[in-house]
């Protein structure tokens, strides 16, 4: 079964943002950012698009499927 990988931590750190700052930017809790980065939680499409927009990256650069 395919799994969802993400580069959220890498891209967030490249923008010099903390988890709390990114969370504030898209109106979610820091817990959401932490769980997505750790692969514990798969976000909804809405959150994924907000994350991509906040980081200025296309969503497919943020998330990808791995076999």
């Amino acid at each position, binding site marked *: 079964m395919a799994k969802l990988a993400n580069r959220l931590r890498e891209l967030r750190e490249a923008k010099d943002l903390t988890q*709390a700052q990114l*969370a*504030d930017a898209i*109106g*979610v*809790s*820091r*817990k*959401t950012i*932490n*769980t997505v980065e*750790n692969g*514990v*939680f798969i*976000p*909804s499409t809405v*959150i994924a698009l907000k994350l991509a927009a906040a980081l200025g990256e296309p969503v497919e650069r943020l998330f990808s499927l791995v076999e």
Partner: protein
Amino acid sequence: MSQATSPGEAAERLSRRRARMLPVLALFVLIQQAAFFSAGDRMRTVDIVRTCGWLVLVAVIVAALVTGGFWFRSREIRDLMDDEVTRANRSSALTLGFPVAMATGIVLYGLEAFQPGSVTPREAIHLIVSFGLVAALLRFGYLERRALG
């Protein structure tokens, strides 16, 4: 002088407090359960008061578990405390609590079939509610603590 905190910081602080409180509440329910069984299923005035106390406690905990609690905080903070991850964690907790309650009911039904009168209806209700609730509280607490990192 207290420093003003952003809604995000307040939600984080309260979420951590909630995650710490959940296992404590589970323990509290179990202590109430032990007190009920140690006193026996009687209906003296003191037992009626104790049973009413348990009913109120359980109703408040279930309401807090289902809604997220912190009802007197602002809508913004409560929304941050009830975001996607929290709703997923709560759903997982309730998904565990329901079968635990059902399994408890099935075991008690089986017990009643083989040893009639071994458990009174009030004791059975107590056990079903408490086991289901404690399972959900512990699961929610564990998932929230893991999510908070």
